[in-house]
């Protein structure tokens, strides 16, 4: 069936548009640097690269082979060329061949894959064990065994809101930078235990080929052995709510000496900054500290203005809870908000923030915007209401 020729004007214009689009696409291609898996930073990641390349080549060969037949047919067996249809519709030999040969191909793909699967699961005899806890929306790192045991911190997105909201130019590590990076020594076998404080998250470093879901109430593990120093960046990789795209993972691999130095410094810092929960703090001190805690933990939903985004995220400015009895607000902060037996997006921060931080942020909300209670909440008061 011959298609009618469209008017020349339309055809030319369509061709021009298509050429323009292709030019755009091609220039985009030239700019786009990312075609493949990230460079391997460990042997396992290298094995995955190799396996992927092997499978890609095999699949491409088969794909091209099969569709050469189809495209040849499209060319040579067309009615307009005068080709008349044969009427065969069976051929047992051929059918057996194209059942058995793919089966064999699958075996030669599955065998090398099996080796890597088993290697990836072997988390035995680690040099260092770190527990990673996924929270909405940040990571908690606890060094639980090995050099650095006892170090514990929260790692939060450090990219400023102005960049996300397009009010400032985006930095090179936009959405891939954190305040506290996970530091590990090169060449050592690192075992990571994953869990979560609320919903399912997933911890992943592509450079090491290691990914493991972080499941609340359960502990799973993964391992990696970084081969070279460097900084490796990644993101949470299981939908965990509103800010799922904003909780990156940054792993800094350093030499053994640098690691020991870092451990030493971290331990000193922890001791020095150890918030004394029995200390009495002044209002302004708490408020200032609370402003920082607020910026890191509350701003996404309740906004810097405290106006929130009702009805989903209530305002704190003028809020009954914030202006009401302090025990209510402390409990809300510790345990979250549950409506009719159903948890809400307001999770409890009791296991993410310490008593000083909680006291500080509550003090901040009670003394900011139009809220002027003049009250200072002390860490001891928070501690007393912890279950």
């Amino acid at each position, binding site marked *: 069936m011959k298609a009618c020729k469209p008017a020349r004007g339309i055809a030319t214009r369509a061709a021009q548009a298509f050429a323009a689009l292709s030019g755009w696409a091609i220039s985009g291609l030239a700019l786009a640097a990312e075609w493949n898996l990230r460079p391997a930073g460990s042997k396992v990641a290298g094995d995955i690269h190799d396996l992927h390349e092997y499978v890609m080549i095999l699949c491409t060969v088969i794909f091209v082979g099969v569709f050469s037949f189809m495209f040849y047919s499209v060319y040579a067996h067309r009615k307009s060329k005068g080709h008349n249809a044969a009427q065969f519709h069976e051929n047992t030999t051929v059918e057996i061949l194209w059942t058995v040969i793919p089966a064999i191909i699958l075996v030669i793909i599955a065998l090398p894959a099996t080796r890597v699967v088993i290697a990836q699961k072997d988390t035995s005899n680690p040099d260092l064990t770190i527990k990673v806890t996924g929270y909405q929306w940040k990571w908690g790192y606890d060094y639980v065994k090995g050099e650095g045991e006892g170090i514990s911190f929260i790692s939060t997105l450090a990219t400023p809101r102005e960049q996300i909201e397009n009010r400032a130019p985006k930095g090179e590590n936009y959405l891939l930078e954190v305040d506290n990076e996970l530091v590990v020594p090169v060449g050592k076998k690192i075992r990571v235990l994953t869990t979560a404080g609320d*919903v399912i998250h997933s911890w992943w470093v592509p450079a090491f080929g290691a990914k493991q879901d972080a499941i609340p109430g359960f502990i799973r593990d993964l391992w990696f052995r970084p081969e070279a120093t460097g900084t490796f960046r990644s993101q949470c990789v299981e939908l965990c709510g509103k800010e799922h795209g904003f909780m990156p993972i940054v792993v800094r691999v350093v030499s053994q000496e640098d690691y020991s130095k870092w451990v030493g410094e971290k331990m000193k810092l922890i001791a020095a900054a150890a918030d004394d929960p029995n200390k009495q703090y002044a209002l302004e001190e708490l408020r200032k500290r609370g402003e920082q805690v607020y910026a890191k933990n509350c701003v996404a939903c309740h906004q810097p203005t405290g106006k929130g985004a009702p009805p989903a995220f209530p305002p704190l400015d003028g809020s009954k809870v914030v202006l009401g009895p302090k025990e209510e607000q402390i409990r809300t902060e510790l345990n979250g908000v549950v409506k009719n037996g159903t948890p809400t*997006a307001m999770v409890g921060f009791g296991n993410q923030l310490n008593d000083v931080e909680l006291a500080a942020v509550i003090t901040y909300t009670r003394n900011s915007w139009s809220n002027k209670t003049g009250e200072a909440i002390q860490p001891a008061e928070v501690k007393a209401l912890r279950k």
Partner: protein
Amino acid sequence: MSAVIDTHGHAHDGHDHHDHHGGYGGVLRWITTTNHKDIGTLYLWFSFIMFMVGGTMAMAIRLELFQPGIQFFNPDLFNQFTTMHGLIMVFGAIMPAFVGFANWQIPMMIGAPDMAFARLNNWSFWLLPFAASLLVISFFTPGGAPGVGWTMYAPLTVQMGVGMDLTIFAVHLLGMSSILGSINIITTILNMRAPGMTLMRMPLFCWTWLITAYLLVAAMPVLAGAVTMSLTDRHFGTSFFNAAGGGDPVLYQHIFWFFGHPEVYIIALPAFGVVSQVIPAFSRKPLFGYASMVYATSAIAILSFIVWAHHMYTVGMPVQGQLFFMYATTLIAIPTGVKVFNWVATMWKGSLTFETPMLFAIGFLFLFTLGGFTGLVLSLVPIDIQLHDTYYVVAHFHYVMVAGALFAAFAGIYFWLPKWTGRMYDETLGKWHFWLTMIFFNITFFVQHFLGLAGMPRRIPDYPLIFESWNKISSIGAFGFGLSQLLFLYLVLKAIRSGEKAPEKPWEGADSLEWTHLPTPAPYHSFETPPVLK
């Protein structure tokens, strides 16, 4: 709407033929119809409307993803769009489209006068607009639509507002519609074939629907179970998926994917069926290896029940589990490969013409297979560890569900529109629709493979700068793809209203009962007397 079916095949002249259509006219006809052709039409129009609604959400998603930064939709709303795009497309667009084909075609292809349970058929349809409204209304409830992904994992679902409950209710209704429809299809095919129409003589389209209907009966109740358990966890104090209460979040995933994997074959098998009708017709040659196609389809259906955890390789299952599911999943490549080879062998040494149905069928063959290969890549655990929950997976399933199932649906519409309406569509416009769809589809989704390999996670409204170029290209492709579907709407309406009168046999090589034993357009009631088959 009553203009859609004109049983007498001549141009619209304002005659009132409503007395032939069950005694009602206008809107009441469509509400009360028990005629499989009418119901097929209802399903198809509903599915197209849902395709537009889900498509609008996709445009919103790609608009936000055009550049890094948050420009248009806050992350919460973005998650709602992502979720609803998935639910609407899967349950509101693609599945009902193929049920529409089943309703129109199965009775005609087996020589039956209608479906086994004609009134149940009506209810099965009307459940759908009600359920779809619930999904859309959820956007306007406090908290909005749930932002949990179409997979609705626990315990994230527990945090959602009342929109989640509306969605769960909608899912129940959608499931019930599918189950009732499947019961109808199985009963019709098993019990109402014309004498001489043995099972192994049926068009392959009927076989694929028979098998799909069994999958639906087995799998949809499982989904219903999973979301019911989420509902009770939310409101009735159970802890199926709550660790603090003694439950396990991963249990939800097991139950969901036990449904979820057969679900993707529920989407694919009817598409295979359509393509198995179109390719032989335009090759003027019988389908190669009919019996193998039946066995391969059955094998795929059975295997689909033992592979579900390949969606869960990173939950932390023991290595033996990962290996079992990897091996079982790679096995599915064998019967699928057999089908692809058989379609190519059908074309081989045929006498080919390339009207629009054939273009879409060939496009399906090429791109669905490509999607199948990325599925093979994903089935390998070590590689999946890198690609799980990244855009590589998004690319994979859009290849098999859009370039696969949707292209097959387009092929079916172009193929059967003459039989349904007695009118031809404009072939030039049809070809434009094909090429625009083909090109823009690939621009949109091919580059997403690279995004996944490079490490871009799924379900994020904003992304690091290295992902910018591919995202820009993908978004441009998406806008083009969306606009091209408006051309489809235009040409279908144009065909129905003022298309050239179709000849009795517009497709030389088509040889199933509706083409050989019925006039064009098919009469409102066909095969009231069973056909005599040689």
